[in-house]
């Protein structure tokens, strides 16, 4: 089998599996359905492992569907392209889907009969959409896969239709994401009008040709840039497009949250980086300096907003969701540096974060299962009996805070160092955001699993989402926590650790990042002409300053958490808090109209900023 054949297979396997499960699930018993779904997901993991192994560290696998290969640099065909960042991300998707399927063996009292097997079928469909988005080399296909994974994610978010809040979260998620996707499509239409091409590489080459012929960049290209990036930026939950994310993550079933936070949001970021790099980074696109400044600003704001809001939450899943917003901001800073070093930091960070965050969501699912609540205040001290989940939760919180030698710590260290070379104060953002998000989760872990401190007093003047009154997602507790619900988070945390401990992972991701930023090589491989030699890979390994800053942010997280736990709950809040944090919380109004308005305002602001810099 040729390497190129693995590309369509990576998307086709889960698609086929979803169809088989949807049909066969009516007759199979529960165990049979779970076994079938797990086998199918494992098959896709094998496929992606083979793809990862066969595309070398600087190679790309290119597959023209139906063998419509380009002649003379032009083709009407549709192309799938895998370099190691793309295939690595798809591999992460398949591994997480497999983990989630194993986690949900005992989760959900799934309906049998006509609707049996729907949940695993939807998960496989979700997997197909995400793999397709990671592997496509065509802008319009990217839109279609974007909407496929979007539509399945809306359905999975609103899976428990008996409760009004999942429906509300799914609607906000769906309306905002699809509106952004249609804006992207308008941008794609504009690019097609200008170049007559739809493939990423072909559009990029056509824009460069126009620039070489003297037709430089004009307003249309800048408008198309902003519109095309609208969809991926909303999916990546960059501020001010992040409002849908906490609403959706707070209410989606815990296994679904593991996927949404662990990898779907990061795919949005991948879309931003890929589209910018291949289409707009050439002579006919936008200058690197302008894009770098704009995306860096967006990343810093996203990170700070996510961290501040994360600290404020008492609903555990909403807290984890805002921590994802904070971390996505950090990934965006890494990717926005537009150099191999920053990008390799972001890649390692994403891999480590996926393990830690999915583990934390899985452990929150255990709480939801046993106590029917994910409220930090209401659960105070009630989960003392859950020893192992408690230990894992605290370890996960420390991993979020960037404690060496976790993969999150390594990613943070590499991205931080690259960011510090660009702007000296950026490492402060990394340390602060890691410490605040890790500290918030640690605080919740100490209170819920350890019963430390006094229970906080209710403050009705602050409109907050409590975690009370959540229906348990599975059948009534049978005494013991189901084994997969603890084993899978433990394995995920071990995965996060291995990213930081095994030197091969960091090295492979660093050379993958170097190949990702090699635009000329990508264009040459897709369009079938000889390309330049690959760029040297940056170093992605622990340095003394990286370890030091990782320890610092973990210590700060512990300090924040203990200070919060030991704080006298009767004490009021300071003036700074009332002036700075309360207005920020009020912005998260839960109103759909506000979210769409922020989408429009954010895009307009981005357009004006870009235009002003050109």
């Amino acid at each position, binding site marked *: 089998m040729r390497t190129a054949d693995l590309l369509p297979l990576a998307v086709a396997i889960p698609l086929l599996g979803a169809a088989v499960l949807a049909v066969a699930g009516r007759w199979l018993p529960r165990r049979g359905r779970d076994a079938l779904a797990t086998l199918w997901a494992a098959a896709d993991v094998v496929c992606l492992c083979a793809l990862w192994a066969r595309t070398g560290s600087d190679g790309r696998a290119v597959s023209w569907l139906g063998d419509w290969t380009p002649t003379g640099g032009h083709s*009407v065909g549709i192309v799938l392209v895998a370099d190691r960042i793309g295939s690595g991300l798809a591999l992460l998707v398949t591994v997480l889907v497999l983990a989630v399927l194993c986690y949900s063996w005992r989760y959900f009292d799934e309906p049998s009969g006509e609707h049996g097997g729907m949940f695993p079928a939807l998960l496989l469909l979700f997997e197909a959409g995400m793999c397709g988005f990671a592997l496509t080399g065509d802008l*319009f296909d990217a*839109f*279609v896969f974007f*909407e496929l994974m*979007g*539509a399945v994610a*809306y*359905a999975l978010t*609103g899976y428990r*239709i*008996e*409760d*009004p*809040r999942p*429906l*509300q*979260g*799914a*609607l*906000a998620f*769906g*309306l905002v994401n*699809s*509106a952004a996707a*249609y*804006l992207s*499509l*308008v941008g794609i*239409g*504009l690019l*097609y*009008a200008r170049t007559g091409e*739809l493939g990423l590489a072909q559009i990029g080459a056509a824009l460069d040709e126009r620039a070489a012929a003297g037709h430089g960049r004009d307003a249309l290209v800048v408008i198309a840039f902003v519109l095309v990036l609208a969809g991926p930026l909303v999916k990546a939950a960059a501020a001010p497009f992040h409002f849908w994310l*906490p*609403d959706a993550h*707070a*209410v989606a079933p815990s296994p679904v949250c593991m996927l949404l936070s662990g990898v779907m949001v990061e795919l949005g970021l991948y879309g931003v980086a890929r589209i910018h790099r291949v289409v707009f980074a050439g002579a006919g696109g936008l200058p690197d300096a302008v894009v770098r400044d704009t995306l860096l600003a967006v990343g810093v704001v996203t990170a700070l907003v996510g961290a501040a809001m994360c600290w*404020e939450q008492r609903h555990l899943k909403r807290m984890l969701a805002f921590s994802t917003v904070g971390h996505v901001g950090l990934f965006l800073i890494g990717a926005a540096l537009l150099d191999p070093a920053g990008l390799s930091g972001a890649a390692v960070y994403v891999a480590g974060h996926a393990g830690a965050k999915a583990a934390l969501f899985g452990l929150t699912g255990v709480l939801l299962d046993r106590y029917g609540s994910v409220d930090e205040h209401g659960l105070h001290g009630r989960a003392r009996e859950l020893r192992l989940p408690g230990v894992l939760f605290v370890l996960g919180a420390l991993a979020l805070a960037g404690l060496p030698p976790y993969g999150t710590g390594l990613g943070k260290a590499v991205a931080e160092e690259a960011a510090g070379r660009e702007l000296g104060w950026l490492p402060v953002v990394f340390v602060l955001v890691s410490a605040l998000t890790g500290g918030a989760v640690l605080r919740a872990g100490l209170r819920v699993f350890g019963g430390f401190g006094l229970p906080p007093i209710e403050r009705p003047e*602050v*409109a*907050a*989402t409590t975690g009370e009154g959540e229906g348990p997602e599975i059948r009534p507790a049978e005494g013991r926590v189901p084994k997969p619900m603890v084993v899978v988070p433990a394995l995920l945390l071990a995965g996060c650790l291995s990213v930081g401990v095994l030197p091969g992972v960091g090295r492979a991701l660093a050379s993958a990042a170097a190949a990702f930023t090699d635009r000329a090589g990508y264009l040459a491989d897709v369009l079938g002409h000889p390309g330049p030699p690959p760029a040297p890979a940056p170093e992605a390994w622990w340095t003394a300053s990286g370890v030091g800053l990782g320890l610092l942010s973990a210590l700060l997280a512990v300090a924040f958490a203990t200070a919060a736990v030991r704080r006298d709950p009767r004490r009021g809040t300071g003036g700074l808090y009332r002036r700075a944090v309360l207005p920020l*919380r*009020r912005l*998260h*109004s*839960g*109103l*759909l*109209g506000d979210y*769409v*308005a922020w989408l*429009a305002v954010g895009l307009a602001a981005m357009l004006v900023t870009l235009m002003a810099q050109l």
Partner: protein
Amino acid sequence: MSVFPYLVAGWILLAGLYGLVTSRNLVQAVGCLAVAQSSTYVLLLAVGYRSGATAPVYSDLPTDAPVVDPVVQALALTDIVVGATVTALLLSLVIQLRKRHGTVDPEELTGLRG
């Protein structure tokens, strides 16, 4: 090629977004999303239009006959399929919301904030 169809597409898009921002009824909001999406149909067809050309079906045409761009038509068709799926899914969520919660007004849904 006149600029008029592009202005129409932009207008439809803004009208749909305005509706999404101000709507007090979720059925209407989903409708507004569909309106915003229909601007992409207008835009795509305008991009592929050639004056004096005919539909790109060659069965009863000479092979050198001028035709409009078939690619945008394929794009618009795919777009319609995607839009139909998303609209149907979102409407079914609204129906469930009305059944279980008795409201379709987004301002009455205050379960998630802060």
